[in-house]
């Protein structure tokens, strides 16, 4: 595929991946507050389960760069990279994770249930439940005669859930502007893809539904960019749904606190040697004539936005207990 990416888009990819990485790293620290010396999931300023996306940044930025506010993104329980790439309000998102009243859901949803209707982003905790919902958003685009698209992100584990299969058939049958991105990080918690999936990769399953499949190797954000551009443009032109599978890396455990007994200790250090953010940084400087200063400017801007979001979250109020009874019905 001929590379078409502009320098502006390359810079956006880099800055956004950097922002995601910085956000997730900061969450690793923040999440562990109050949970020492003995880990207790219910303690600290950010309690409950935490599923971080460190290492999976290319999957999010490579496609979200092509999306508009009106396009829909539906994500699973590991949503932060998608949310940031889609342009979710970072302050409100962070506040939600801290359970504050200023959060996207006034503290009711938490990190797995982030909803930002302004940018058409949602996520949830039930594997593959987001897929038919994105199909629904694609259906609306068609009904309203708009060229918006809907993207659902899942892990490779979710591709073996019933909703995956039903949704693809439906989207294909009704020729909807729907794109399914499968982030293959090789693990469904502790079970590797070879032990869960009957085919080598899910782009191959596209033919079972009569649609197009794409495969991106080695967590490459630029390849993801190129492939996504084709899928998104085809969808906007009314040429129907696609599956994109990207081989990506989960640096951390399934959830924070996961002992990862099922994983070889050598694996993550090896993955980090080919870190996509470092690679893109070098690429920007060596191939695209950006200076070190140019790059540092992008990094500082990203870090500032994240730092301000965390500050906002910490300084915000908690909801009043009785607010638990509100928002059941409108």
């Amino acid at each position, binding site marked *: 595929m001929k590379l078409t990416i502009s320098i502006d888009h390359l810079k956006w990819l880099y800055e956004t991946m950097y922002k995601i990485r910085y956000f997730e790293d900061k969450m690793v620290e923040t999440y562990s507050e109050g949970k020492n010396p*003995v*880990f*207790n*999931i*219910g303690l600290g300023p950010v*309690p*409950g*389960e935490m599923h971080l996306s460190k290492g999976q940044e290319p999957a999010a930025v490579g496609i979200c760069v092509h999306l508009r506010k009106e396009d829909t993104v539906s994500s699973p329980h590991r949503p932060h990279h998608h949310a940031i790439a889609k342009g979710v309000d970072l302050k409100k998102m962070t506040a939600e994770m801290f*359970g*504050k009243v200023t*959060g996207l*859901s006034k*503290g*009711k*949803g*938490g990190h*797995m*249930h982030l909803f930002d209707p302004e940018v058409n982003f949602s996520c*949830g*905790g*039930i*594997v*593959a*439940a987001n897929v038919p919902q994105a199909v629904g958003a694609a259906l609306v685009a068609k009904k309203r005669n708009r060229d918006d698209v809907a993207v659902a992100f899942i892990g490779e*584990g*979710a591709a*073996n*859930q*019933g*909703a995956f299969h039903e949704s693809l058939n439906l989207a294909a049958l009704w020729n909807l502007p729907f794109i399914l991105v499968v982030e293959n990080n090789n693990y*469904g*918690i*502790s*079970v590797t893809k070879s*032990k*869960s*999936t009957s085919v080598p990769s899910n782009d191959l399953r596209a033919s079972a539904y009569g649609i197009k499949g794409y495969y991106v190797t080695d967590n490459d954000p630029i390849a993801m960019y190129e492939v996504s551009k084709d899928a998104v443009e085809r969808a906007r032109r009314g040429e129907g749904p696609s599956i994109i599978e990207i081989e990506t890396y989960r640096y951390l455990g399934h959830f924070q*606190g996961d002992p990862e*007994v*099922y994983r070889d200790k050598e694996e993550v250090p090896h993955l980090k040697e080919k870190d996509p953010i470092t690679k893109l940084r070098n690429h920007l400087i060596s191939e695209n004539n950006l200076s070190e200063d140019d790059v540092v400017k992008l990094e500082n801007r990203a870090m500032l936005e994240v730092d301000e979001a965390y500050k906002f979250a910490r300084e915000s109020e*908690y*909801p*009043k*207990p*009785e*607010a*638990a*009874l509100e928002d*059941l019905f409108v």
Partner: protein
Amino acid sequence: MLQTKKRLLTGNKALAEAIRLEMERDPEVFVMGEDVGKYGGIFGATEGLLQKFGPDRIMDTPISETAFIGAAVGAASQGMRPIVELMFVDFFGVCMDQIYNQMAKIPYMSGGNVRLPMVLMTAVGGGYNDAAQHSQTLYATFAHLPGMKVVVPTTPFDLKGMMISAIRDDNPVVFMFNKTLQGLGWMDQIHASLGHVPEEAYTVPLGKAKVVREGTDVTIVGIQMTTVQEQEAAKKLEQDGISAEIIDLRSLVPLDKETILNSIKKTHRLLVVDEDYLSYGMTAEIAALAAEQALYDLDAPVKRIAIPDVPIPYSRSLEQFVLPSAEKIYNEARKLVNE
């Protein structure tokens, strides 16, 4: 009379031991579920079992609940005794047909000719900020639908004894264990998650409640965590001169009505506490039982504590507001006794 050595075990180790003992005894028993292998089950129900029995009997499945729970129904109809794990009870939505329409009804629809000797085990409970889709108990959802036994043990002793009974039972059993009572290292380590458990195999009958604390002034009925909270409240009530009798239900289907009614006859006051939603649930069922069969034994209306019919919110102040607690139980029991 149990003669062998007792040791202190966490809930999860007691459960895993029950499964191990039955798998050693009966080659027809096998386990299917997500992360039951190397991981030992997300809530430790199969800890150590892969090493002992190998991947042919401790089978990691894809994220395909309809397929593997349906496969368990099929395997059970062929005479094997599968134990299948639904990782979080909240996930029942993706596979409920195989549970309530197939597993629960096939024995009846076949006039008793097809038996399904299977166990569906699942983790329940909240209180650690896992939000609306990962914190539910859903006791009533399963208890309401005919054709499956539904058991809810609290202590490690009961977890082991009732799992062994469940595996040996030729009926389908939904075995719900509470996450916090598993005693896992990454959750809140509470005393109630540790208990004395004999080494050998033993059974605790399904369908029998237990009076875990005798009292004279008020009957407080609970399940799993609410039983633990009730016992805490009872200590405080005692200081106020109120003697609470606490019943750990241990089983929803069959329900031990006799134990509950005998207690009401003794105390004349009833408080029911449930970690499930309030309306159309366990508290309503026990209240109906009292109204139907013990009305003239009651000196005051029945009181209920449960989640106030909203999804479980994430933020700590909100979650604590909706869940039962020892404090809420203490306050309600006092009010009830003083009515």
